[in-house]
């Protein structure tokens, strides 16, 4: 123990001075002449870590593969990894650090709408480019963000059309109490009423909530044909267990979920969720060798039983899209890359051929999957046509359009 007063005083003052002026962040310092730095910004700690770490892994895998095949424009890509700590203000702070301190050419990252909204002003101020891999509530189109995740009309509405095709007339909406469920439900209600069907109930549970007794009682009373579930993370486990306890299994009362992927299904125990439906733009069980190659490469690097989900594939294809756009534009300047990306036309990815629309959202197909006992989803919808992304739903938000 440092007993002398002078000793302790010197140490703490020195530590303070060193810490504050050395800046922080662990990324490699300015990349040497031959490399190009890109930011990878996800929550590595906090409640969102369970979903975002695998997405970060997919991005690192893509970068590794690109470097193995000669990099981009002759330069090797160095990834600067930062932790958003499941906190929007940290995401904004780290985004500023990646761009201003580390000088990255672009950033791949974000998961919750909150983290994207917090980073938006930073990217618009610094004119950099964020590749956002997760499905979201739409109502936003910024020149500085490439939205590869599904817009509501590429996930929620196809699911609704499929449900109507199955003859379901009455709906019950259950969701976690945050932005995506509330906005998605707002859009769904408008379309359900327009199609002459009925919404029998709408319930929200706080994030991480585990008590569904009230919600299930309302469901039992309303007796809907199908439940549309926008619950997030742990709450799904509690919901399905308490539904099962009340004698309502997905086989007797169909449930269409927007936040349950292969990874979540495995954690909840497939027996619990078997027979429930999910709507994504990608399922691990999609045919095609591009998908097989990606799944094999990921499982070789991160564990044989690793589950591959929709956001992971979007993140993976984002990195390749950036590479293609940079090569087409012949430069790493975010503005040039952005313009090149929307004029790339369709390019092959593990989820099939996709392309970026002028509003910088991804044109992609939607699939409905039914969970099999082995934890994979069986594709039950016919392979529909490519869906053009519409950030602003015509019914819910008339007269709005994306002016880039």
């Amino acid at each position, binding site marked *: 123990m440092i007993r002398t007063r002078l000793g302790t005083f010197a140490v703490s003052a020195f530590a303070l001075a060193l810490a504050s002026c050395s800046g922080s962040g662990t990324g490699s310092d300015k990349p040497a002449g031959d490399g190009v730095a890109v930011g990878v910004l996800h929550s590595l700690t906090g409640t969102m870590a369970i979903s975002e770490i695998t997405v970060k892994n997919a991005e690192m895998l893509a970068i590794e593969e690109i470097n193995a095949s000669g990099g981009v424009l002759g330069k090797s890509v160095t990834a600067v990894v*930062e932790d958003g700590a499941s906190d929007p203000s940290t995401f904004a702070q780290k985004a500023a650090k990646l761009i201003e301190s580390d000088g990255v050419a672009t950033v791949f990252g974000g998961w919750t709408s909150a983290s994207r909204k917090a980073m938006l002003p930073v990217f618009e101020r610094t004119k950099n480019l964020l590749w956002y891999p997760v499905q979201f509530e739409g109502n936003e189109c910024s020149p500085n963000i490439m939205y590869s995740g599904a817009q509501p009309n590429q996930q929620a509405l196809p699911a609704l059309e499929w449900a109507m095709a199955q003859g379901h007339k009455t709906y019950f909406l259950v969701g976690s109490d945050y932005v995506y469920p509330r906005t998605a439900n707002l859009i769904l209600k408008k379309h359900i009423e327009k199609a002459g069907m009925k919404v029998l109930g709408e319930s929200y549970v706080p994030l991480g909530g585990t008590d569904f007794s009230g919600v299930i009682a309302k469901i039992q009373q309303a007796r809907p044909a199908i439940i549309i579930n926008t619950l997030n993370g742990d709450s799904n486990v509690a919901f399905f267990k308490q539904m099962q306890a009340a004698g309502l299994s997905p086989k007797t009362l169909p449930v269409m979920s927007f936040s349950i992927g292969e990874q979540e299904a495995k954690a909840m125990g497939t027996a619990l969720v078997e027979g429930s439906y999910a709507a994504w733009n990608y399922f691990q069980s999609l045919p095609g060798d591009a998908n097989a190659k990606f799944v094999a490469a990921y499982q070789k690097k991160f564990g044989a039983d690793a589950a591959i989900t929709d956001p992971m594939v979007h993140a993976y294809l984002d990195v390749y899209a950036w590479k293609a756009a940079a090569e087409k534009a012949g430069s790493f300047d975010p503005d040039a890359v952005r313009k090149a990306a929307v004029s790339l036309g369709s390019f092959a990815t593990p989820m099939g051929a996709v392309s970026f629309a002028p509003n910088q959202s991804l044109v992609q197909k939607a699939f409905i999957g039914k969970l099999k006992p082995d934890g994979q989803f069986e594709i039950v919808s016919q392979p529909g046509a490519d869906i053009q992304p519409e950030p602003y739903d015509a019914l819910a938000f008339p007269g709005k359009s994306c002016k880039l």
Partner: protein
Amino acid sequence: MSKLVPPAPLRRAKPALPWVLLALGIAAPFYLGAYDLNLLARFMAMAILAMGLVLIWGHGGILSLGQGVFFGLGGYAIAMHMKLADLPAGEMPDFMVWSGREALPVWWEPFASPAFALAAILIVPTLLGALFAWAVFHRRVGGTYFALITQALALAFATLIISRQDVTGGFNGLTDFYSVFGFGLASPGTGTGLYWLTLAVLCLAYLGLRWLLASRFGMLLRATRDGENRVRFLGYATTPFKTVAFAIAALLAGIAGALFTLHAGVVSPALIGVVPSIEMVVWVAIGGRYSLAGAIVGALLVNLARDAVSSAFPELWLYLMGALFIVVVTLFPNGLAGLLKGNRA
């Protein structure tokens, strides 16, 4: 009765640490880049809140695990003003349109005026803090019970904000600000200007609290901490003293929230819930719960450490924070400041 032995009364200790901090604070804008300066300013705003905890926890024996609530009130007040300041009159912020609202809520309208917003930042947290403290203290509820109730308050407040998405921005919080009181946020001059403002408020709060703690009010607060019964039977109504101290801490937390929001450009429920409120106590425990300067150092060091460590070794960060907190609270109840003064306890 706590068997803690805090250092001798403040007046006699010769504090060298505050002058060092002031020097570092004044020198910072001249050798730090824009990003690091913004980071430091953010943590200095949090240090203001930390000093409030020294007042109520260190000297008053009142452990509040809900300071995030008042931090949030200050932050949301300035954020609502900035949201309206950039809009032509009568229009609604974007998130309200998407949440299906037809008109701006009535209680949002006054925030358009800077004067009202400033008044709200100063008055709303203080008033709510005083009301809450009085409601609990005057029924002689304190110690562990009080800490648990403040934690439940933090949870309820965060849940309420998240669930009222159409008027509070919900889980996304409020962001996308362009100007504050006419100064463009994007221009570098504003960033440095806000840094000096934060430094000035920090110094003002420091001097104010030093004076308050040295005054008879401070003496009586410490007396209430060590022997509330004895103080009550000397004819003092102890509830008003504890309530006023808690209200001052709430005011400092509100101001800290507003300043933080200006630097961070976003205020969201993730900053005001249960876990962030406990982390605020961690800064003060590590810095030194009886020393204002110690709390400032604690707030700066822990936040800087989080910023550096959590990216490099994400899995280690929680172990480090947990272990650090156990060691400090158990072996160094006087924190770093105690080390400096040589009386560990």
